[in-house]
């Protein structure tokens, strides 16, 4: 069973609708009515999409044996960018928004984008200052402190 490409996404939606149907059956009739009315046709439509996507993918596989080098490079950049987003998210979880904005921005600019030291530092500082002034000082928002800070409190 393929988990990539259009059929992979269709499969994800199938699991989603199946999960919703199973969970809905546990609610009282009024609460489950509309979710079931939406999820069951959604599931049927998605199964149709999945079958169609599988058929198209098999046809394409017969015609093109392997990914072009350009496509492989794009796929690599795609995964790389997703990884950076996950890293940023994990930094926020553990270090909080202030620290992770500083660290992530600098590391991304200096080591991923290969910008110069002055540019990386000035953009990092400017971005953090802008966030601090706009959100903390003016709006008086409290930004997430991070799990590590909470441990020390």
């Amino acid at each position, binding site marked *: 069973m393929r988990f990539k490409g259009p059929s992979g996404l269709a499969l994800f939606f199938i699991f989603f609708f199946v999960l919703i149907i199973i969970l809905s059956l546990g609610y009282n009739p009024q609460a489950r009515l509309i979710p079931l009315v939406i999820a069951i046709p959604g599931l049927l439509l998605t199964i149709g999409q999945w079958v169609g996507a599988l058929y198209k993918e098999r046809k394409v596989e017969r015609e093109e044996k392997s990914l072009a080098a350009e496509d492989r490079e794009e796929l690599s950049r795609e995964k790389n*960018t997703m990884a950076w987003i996950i890293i940023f998210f994990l930094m926020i*979880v553990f270090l909080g928004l202030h620290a992770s904005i500083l660290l992530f921005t600098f590391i991304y600019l200096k080591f991923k984008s290969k910008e110069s030291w002055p540019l990386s530092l000035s953009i990092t500082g400017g971005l953090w200052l802008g966030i601090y002034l706009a959100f903390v000082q003016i709006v008086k928002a409290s930004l997430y402190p991070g799990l590590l800070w909470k441990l020390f409190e």
Partner: protein
Amino acid sequence: MMWESFINGFFLSISWQSLGYMLLAIPIGLTIGAIPGLGGNLGLALLIPFTFGMEPLAAFALLLGMHSVVHTGSPIPSILFDTPGAGPAAATCLDGYPMAQKGEAGRALGATFASSGVGGVIGALAMAITIPVIRPIVLAFGPPEFFMLAMLGLAFIASVSGESIARGLIAGAVGLIISFVGMDPQTGVVRFGFGQLYLWEGIKLVPVVIGLFALAEVIDLGKKGTKSIAQVQAYEAKGGMWQGVKDTFIHWWLVLRCSIIGDIIGMIPGLGGDAASFIAYGHAQQTSKHPEEFGKGTVEGVLAPESANNSKEGGALIPTLAFGVPGSSGMAILLGAFMILGLAPGPEMLTKHLDLTFSMVWMLVIANVLAALACLATANHLAKITFIRSSILIPFILVFGLVGSYLTTNHMGDLIITLLMGFLGYGMKKYDYPRASLILGLILGEIAENNLHLSLNLFGPAFLLRPMTLIILAIAALPIVFPWFKKAGKKEGKEGVR
């Protein structure tokens, strides 16, 4: 008396005090609109304490001056970074960002500011015209009509689905299911909560749109490895801001229709103004001579949602003033200002305080015009941002997007939702599942379900036979039926040529 009050209202709105507060409030509103995650409601909540002890005229100049221009600022990040400044601005991402990628960011910004200004003015004038007759119109709407209006909005899923209606319906269904997360107000059951308190209140719109659009676009930018958002060189950039302004007047009929759509949706309390931009977008696509261009960077795809977005604020003010029933969440906060100022919304606003009411109409007009002019002065400079290296912009977009998402409820859950929606949104973009359909489902799902249950409890299945309900049902069928007629008409035309 009505005409005298209309003129008096104008002179009140251009008094030094009123103009002064508006000039102070307009930049605040534009900035709040342009920063993802803040939203006009936050601006109102921040400014209301300042209205203690103020004259009503000054207070409303401050509050309305800020609130009415938030949606002029919110499409700026939509166009430049595919990051909506507010939920409704997500509709502008659909064509605004592709225009920026084609080097037409200036044109997109010019179109958005001009159509926002025009939409805001039309919304204000519609408010002035309907004030005398609004009572029977609004009272004619009950749960059955709200349910059918939600169906009308959902019918537009077919319009924004592009080539594959099946994928559009799947995306719409996912959006509807997401809207059901949380406590069901009819039964008190917490649905799909997975034992998490955060999910009891449901999934908020802002984290979803930031994930679906901003994060998805960051992944796309990183994948393509392009040097800048604009995929052309700066000297190839076409049109500029003035072309966008001209487009607003070339497509004046579209702008007028979408402004009226926004005004009507804003006027109906309980429907939710967030859908106005998407419904207007769907309508524009349906009625366009080139519907296949939508989603690829057509200026009509920017004009339609922006004119509706601003005009709905004028519409939302109508039931707020006339009945004390807020036409939107922002108006609910504005009612707080009424209480602080010792005013009672309702018949008094249409009799004893009619001058003040009409001054609010003029404030909306003046604020929208001034905001549009101010933004137009900066449009070409803002457009240059699309030529900055992507490698520098990516951290900006990520930081502003995630901070904006977190500020929705100050809970980590918002960030998790944004992250998950980011990956889903990227997949949807890559494999042609329309994200607009998901957003429509999310916005309208709760409204549709609640009003369906209320209608069945109050009237039984016979609610479908109410005259207003039948009229709206007929209108709701149009987005589905109209494309068929259009295709059939084209086929007949071809046969005629043979």
